[in-house]
């Protein structure tokens, strides 16, 4: 398979474990370092507001080679919680989001797409994965529907 071979920093894995086991965070946003060599944590937060999270992804940027700033892709894991429509309580699903806006540059899109598999494989316990390419894809309702397979109340 064609993989970029980017490194995964140890912090990514320990922060993910903090999210998964200690419930320390609600979400973690990962990015590639400026030299595209390593995947690092951009932010780990306990903020429960989905809109703030969404806003952060939409506003993410990347630098092109010439130094210009354009929209940028990101990876994120979100500890998604929803309650079942049947009234059987709530569920948690750790969701991996590959965010790659269509209007980002080709270079960052390529680098993120070819580095994704490596990161996903190092994060054990991801329940499902979303590929999102425009702001509609990460609307709360859209994601809820996919994550809960339509069972949320």
């Amino acid at each position, binding site marked *: *398979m064609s993989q970029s071979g980017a490194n995964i920093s140890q912090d990514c894995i320990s922060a993910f474990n903090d999210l998964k086991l200690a419930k320390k965070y609600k979400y973690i946003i990962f990015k590639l370092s400026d*030299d*595209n*060599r390593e995947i690092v944590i951009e932010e780990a937060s306990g903020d429960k507001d989905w809109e703030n999270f969404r806003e952060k992804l939409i506003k993410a940027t990347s630098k092109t080679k010439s130094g210009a700033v354009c929209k940028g892709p990101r990876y994120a894991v979100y500890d998604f919680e929803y309650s079942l429509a049947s009234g059987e309580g709530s569920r948690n699903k750790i969701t991996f989001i590959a965010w790659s806006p269509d209007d980002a540059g080709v270079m960052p899109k*390529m*680098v993120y*797409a070819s580095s*994704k598999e490596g990161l996903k494989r190092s994060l054990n316990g991801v329940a499902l994965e979303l590929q999102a*390419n425009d702001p509609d894809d990460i609307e709360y309702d859209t994601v809820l529907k996919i994550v809960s397979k339509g069972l949320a109340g």
Partner: protein
Amino acid sequence: MAGQQPLPNTQAPIDVYGGDEISALVLDAGYCHTRAGFAGEDVPKSVLPSFYGSLRTSNTDSTTTTYRDIFGDECLYPRSDFEVKNYMSESESVVEDWDAATKLWEHMLIKRLQPDRETSPAKNGLNDAAADGEGDVAMEDVENQEKPLAESPLLMTEAPWNTGKAREKAIEIAMENWGCPAFWMSRTPVCAAFAAGKASALVIDVGGANTSVTAIHDGMVLKRSIQKSQVGGIWLSQQIRNMWDNNDPKVNVVPYFMIENKTAVDAGAPAQAKLRKFPFEVTPSYRAYEEERLLTEFKESVVEVWRGPGRYLNPGNEELVKSQPGRVFEMPDGANQMWREQRYRVSEGMWDENAALPNADGTKAQTIPEMIKACLSAVDVDLRPNLLGNVVVTGGTSLLNGFNDRLNNELMAMHPGMKIKLHAAGLTTERRFGAWIGGSILASLGTFHQMWISRKEYEENGAGIVEKRCK
């Protein structure tokens, strides 16, 4: 001062190819064009037709004939005993003639992209006189120096249906003939999907000789999903020829090189042009190549895709088009006419089998909607919604006016209620060179050096390593 101390191990540069400034080369071969350039650049530096010339020369005693291959579009002009050939297979878009492929690739990668080197000491004449045994050159060194790409890792793209044998042959050429320090092969639809920022996608590649539909999941080609059909650029040319033959007045296909001069004539009037005379016979293969160039121009400027909804042959559509402005096309000989409904009609066979004009051999090609259907039905049901939401369109022929609108309409009609999203690069170059650009970025990444198949690995494992590594 900190700068004068040696770096600790963790910070020491680990670059093998000098970080992002790798001198890697990227080669993307197609039936119509072959693209070669430096990794990290936006467009390939060298784009040549995959067609090449073969010149026949009889020796003076006229008992033997030899053929000389010449490459590059500037060499393709009328000459005597000059055949135009192609090293790729038209039905498969994979290499057919390896000798010619190697030569054409060398022409591009070495002659066009590498700086001139000094002639090796063994051949520059300075050492010829060393008959006394002194001043001779260690032959081993010379051999190493003669490998032209000893400093350039090479990334090649390949069709997803490329055979294991062909892949092994490719790495052999790169390692043995050119001395590349490292090699990698990427599949074209994966490159195109990655360049669109998607690790999973349905890639529709509308190329010159073939159109393919491939499902990619997490960067892997789903082998059983691969569909390919001949409804590409060359097939469309055949449709146009058929349409021209049956047109009233019949359109004479006279390529540019045959025209000495011409006089402007009214639309529909017979051409008034003086044809050039050649003191030798122009070969049919050369003429066909030139005609194809004319057809390409017609495709680029006149042909359009019926946008839908519904098929073009549905009642009422043709009448609607007839009432709209057409486009005038002037042939090289000056004959010109307005094209209205015909320019939609010729491309309709890509979508609707009933609309396809019969090919010379009477066969019909699989249409794009049929390919998509076959591709998706070979894929797990759970993956289908995600694929339909991530359709990547690439390939030069997808630049036909209206192509994406029609594709979108067809997909919506086939899958009502599903979320369908097309991704097609807006820039013409990104669409034409989609796979090359993907390969270019990948090969330019500093971290990619650990992925390359190194020369050492090749020497230890043989050519079979490419099957194991480039999955």
